[in-house]
């Protein structure tokens, strides 16, 4: 574990170094990114300010969802972006092999190889929106609330991670799975909006059980702003209230993680490299 962080930080230093070396690039990139983020935020703001509330949610509550979703996605984007390369081209061109000849976990090698600074902007904007909405909605957290909060945060990251790994693993069968991963990821942005906005039971179940993005954004947020009964009703699971809901979320997260790690492992056995 210590070795992991040592190597991680070595890669990190290198990246920062090369960012600084290409100063102009870096500055330009940051400015562009900042604009992009601010612009998307303004669009959202413009749309939302026309409506005072959506369904049973106030404007500030909607911001809470949005900020949280953005923050999670940004965080995941920063540390765990390199796995996309497996889906896009590493299997196809055989460069995946290089991870197999080093005495470290394959996934850790992939993760540590590149941090994606683009995600930093997403994360920061998300955080700002979240804090703003947090204050506006008048939320107060006890110590226990913070623990639950941290728990949801962790589950969310694991779900993102597992879905990406699962998507990338498909490439062991199909040679490339970038498109599939993109579609999955796009579906994730559905969950900027509350689950009960989707009237179709199929879409709801999809977002709970198949691509459980609802557990990343919606569940953690309504946990703090609605009654347990309300959540259980929308989920359609009468018993999923209070700590049972926490267990439900964690359980599904673990099942998904197990499934994706299993698929990954099975994929490794099929990996054929390329002819050389």
């Amino acid at each position: 574990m210590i070795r992991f962080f040592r190597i991680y930080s070595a890669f990190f230093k290198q990246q920062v170094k090369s960012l600084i070396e290409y100063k102009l690039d870096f500055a330009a990139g940051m400015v562009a990114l900042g604009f992009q983020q601010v612009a998307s935020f303004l669009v959202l703001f413009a749309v939302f300010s026309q409506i005072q509330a959506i369904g049973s949610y106030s404007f500030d509550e909607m911001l809470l969802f949005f900020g949280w979703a953005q923050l999670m996605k940004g965080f995941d984007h920063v540390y765990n972006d390199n796995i996309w390369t497996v889906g896009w081209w590493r299997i196809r061109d055989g460069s995946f092999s290089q991870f197999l000849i080093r005495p470290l976990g394959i996934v850790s090698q992939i993760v540590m190889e590149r941090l994606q600074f683009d995600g930093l902007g997403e994360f920061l904007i998300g955080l700002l929106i979240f804090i703003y909405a947090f204050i506006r909605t008048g939320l107060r957290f006890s110590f226990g609330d913070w623990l639950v909060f941290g728990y949801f945060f962790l589950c969310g990251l694991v779900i993102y991670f597992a879905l990406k790994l699962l998507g990338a693993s498909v490439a062991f069968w199909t040679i490339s799975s970038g498109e599939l991963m993109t579609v999955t990821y796009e579906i994730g942005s559905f969950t900027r909006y509350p689950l009960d906005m989707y009237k179709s039971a199929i879409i709801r179940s999809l977002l709970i059980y198949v691509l459980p993005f609802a557990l990343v954004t919606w569940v953690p947020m309504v946990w703090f702003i609605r009654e347990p009964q309300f959540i259980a009703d929308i989920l359609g699971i009468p018993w999923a209230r209070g700590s049972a809901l926490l267990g439900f979320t964690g359980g599904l997260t673990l099942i998904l993680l197990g499934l994706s790690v299993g698929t990954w492992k099975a994929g490794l056995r099929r990996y054929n490299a390329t002819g050389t």
Partner: protein
Amino acid sequence: MITVDNLSKEFKVYEKQEGFKGAVKSLFSSKYKIKKAVDQVSFSIDAGESVGYIGVNGAGKSTTLKMMTGILLPTSGECRVFGVDPFTNRRNNVKNIGVVFGQRSQLWWDLPVSESFSILQKIYQVPQNRFRENLAFFKNILELDEFYLTPVRNLSLGQKMRADFAASLLHDPKVVFLDEPTIGLDIVVKDRIRSAIKDINAQRNTTVILTTHDLQDIQEVCRRIIVIDEGKILFDGSIDALKTNYGRWRNIHFEIPLTEQGEATEPLFPPDSEGIEVIDDPSGITVKFQRDMHQVGELISRVMKMRQVRDIKINEPEMQDIVKAIYLKGSAGRTIGVQ
């Protein structure tokens, strides 16, 4: 010690048809052929040996190496590298081995060589002293200094190969797998790599397994060769044994003055004589013959009687010719087997 026991690797190759119509058709059929890239291969290699693993393009060399390095899961058979199963115990195996694929660099594209090396030091947990020693050693024999701080993506082919080669040995592996380490290199760099391989084999007792299409590599570096063809082993033994077993052909070159050439005289040997071949060239003729079927003395005196000869040279068989003969025989033998 490395043991390979009835190791096989099959690839499913899906049948594709030509053209757009063909592509649509093959979308709905899933016919495939089984390609046996490596077919029941067995050998064992002792610590400290240097082995050349050769064969024609597509013979199965790289595939064998990929199974021994834990990249590919064998379809059947077993392989142990210093007691470790390369696939199921990947992380333990790769600690013991170094790998160079001449076709592709294993270093990080965007990092300078220096940084790649220091990351490798951390990955393999090489003690600082040892790392410094190794670095000095390889910097010296491979002359890495001139590009040590350059990002890998900016290196020339030869520079990349030298860096890759050093990188694969920083952690003192017990065995190093070199898949075409001299491909595309100029003579000077080739020499440098070869002498580096010899050095680590002789001085550090590192086991070397090398594939190449340049037989000079083998002659200079390896004591033993394994020849593989269509996934099967054709020969396994020392270079000397190869020469005595397969090198039955000898060449005698007769230099004939220009003035004497071109006069159509009667043929030197009856046209149907076996184990003998006459090749004309600008400076005279070369007689190729099988050692076990003809006497050198007889041949020479016969030619001397019939031609004006200025000089005679008897040649040992070139390794290149022997190997070519094995390759050709290998594929011929196989086709006959099929009929």
